[in-house]
């Protein structure tokens, strides 16, 4: 096993598995977030957030998710450094665009943009909800159940600062580009691709990227724009 994880394909195996796991997380997260769009009173979103914060399955998955993120980031960084070292002297001239997509060549940079976004995002919301609390994070009571007013925290952020909206939109777009390559590539690395499935998976990957990027980008924009109308 130690050999397996030391091999290039073994490392990529972990990156792929963790990546696919993170995609599944993104869908859950997006579904939860989209509740902001459907109820401007915030109840739906607050209930969802409360459910997520208290559900035992989600509690168990949360640390796994954290491990998924760490593995994905750690191993891609290791692999990228190894890949850079594999070509100590570069070309004077190289027509890269001819033979590969921009996203596929810039996965590490897209990943780092997403990581930066993630840090801001966690500091803004997750950290506050979970640990420090925030003046904006009051309590609400629905049918006798007291829960945190996460909706208020989130929407206030978007409404107050344009740059936060911009950060979220940039994060979503970077994620979208990351996923256009990542989805099929994960299956390819796991060996689940051939001439036929490659086309299908790439098409599916594109659809997923658009849904994820579009979904995450629309929410802050919607909140901001709705507040202005």
């Amino acid at each position, binding site marked *: 096993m130690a050999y397996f994880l030391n091999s290039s394909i073994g490392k990529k195996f972990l990156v792929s598995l963790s990546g696919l796991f993170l995609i599944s997380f993104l869908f859950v997260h997006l579904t939860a977030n989209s509740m902001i769009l459907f109820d401007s009173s915030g109840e739906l979103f607050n209930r969802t957030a409360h459910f997520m914060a208290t559900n035992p399955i989600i509690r168990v998955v949360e640390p796994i998710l954290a491990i998924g993120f760490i593995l994905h980031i750690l191993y891609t960084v290791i692999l990228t450094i190894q890949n850079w070292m594999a070509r100590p002297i570069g*070309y004077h001239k190289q027509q890269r665009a001819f033979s590969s997509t921009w996203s596929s060549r810039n996965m590490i940079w897209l990943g780092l943009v997403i990581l930066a976004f993630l840090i801001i995002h966690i500091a803004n919301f997750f950290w506050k909800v979970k640990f420090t609390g925030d003046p904006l994070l009051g309590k609400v009571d629905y049918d006798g159940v007291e829960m945190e007013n996460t909706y208020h925290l989130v929407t206030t952020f978007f409404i107050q600062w344009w740059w936060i909206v911009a950060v979220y939109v940039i994060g979503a777009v970077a994620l979208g580009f990351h996923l256009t390559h990542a989805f099929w590539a994960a299956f390819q690395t796991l060996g689940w691709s051939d001439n036929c499935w490659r086309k299908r998976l790439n098409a599916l990957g594109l659809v997923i990227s658009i849904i994820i990027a579009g979904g995450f980008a629309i929410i802050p924009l919607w909140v901001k724009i709705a507040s202005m109308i």
Partner: protein
Amino acid sequence: MDLTLKVWRQADRKSKGNFETYQIKDISPDSSFLEMLDELNEQLIREGIEPVAFDHDCREGICGMCSLFINGRAHGPGHETTTCQLHMRKFKDGDTIVIEPWRAGAFPVIKDLVVDRGAFDKILQAGGFISVNTGNAQDANAIPIKKFQSDEAMDAAACIGCGACVATCKNSSAMLFVASKVSHLALLPQGKVEAVRRAKAMVAKMDELGFGSCTNTGACEVECPKGITLTHIARLNREFLSANLKP
């Protein structure tokens, strides 16, 4: 045609190397790229300059000895073409052509445009064969093999070992090369006996020799002169994973 050539010159493995610019005149558009370099060398010899060293042998696109990164592309412009099959009509009169050696840590430059691709041999020595002694074979028709499988094995086996995949890959990954052999043998019943050992040993050797890993950009497939596809890399991944997941 009159051309300006920017050619990488490097005296030996240890030297630093630099680009030199040469002017060359009256090249026939029907000449092959290597014939153009032959003419350049004749000209350099006349001028008392050491000719440019470059690898080549069969000059019909099958031995895999020619290399060259031409104007930013492995084997230059053209689809499924080796440098020796590239003709000057693909260029325009007055063009500047940049000629570089393959660049990869595992392919050190030996001199000018010549690189050492011995790493490929080492990978194949690790397991890119079927262990059958001469005279051990049963009748050739004893095992029927599905036509499509045999055809797909041939697709993979068409690899000429030129190294364009490594040269063009942003990670200098040799996955397409390794995949072509693993896939070729994995598709045939004869090759299944040693499949586990082969996949493990070849990937381990590939990693050891300092090739990068595959990030599925697909550049290798586009530049492969024999049109070997990423599907074979998927099969290599599958073979490697199942080799390691088996007890």
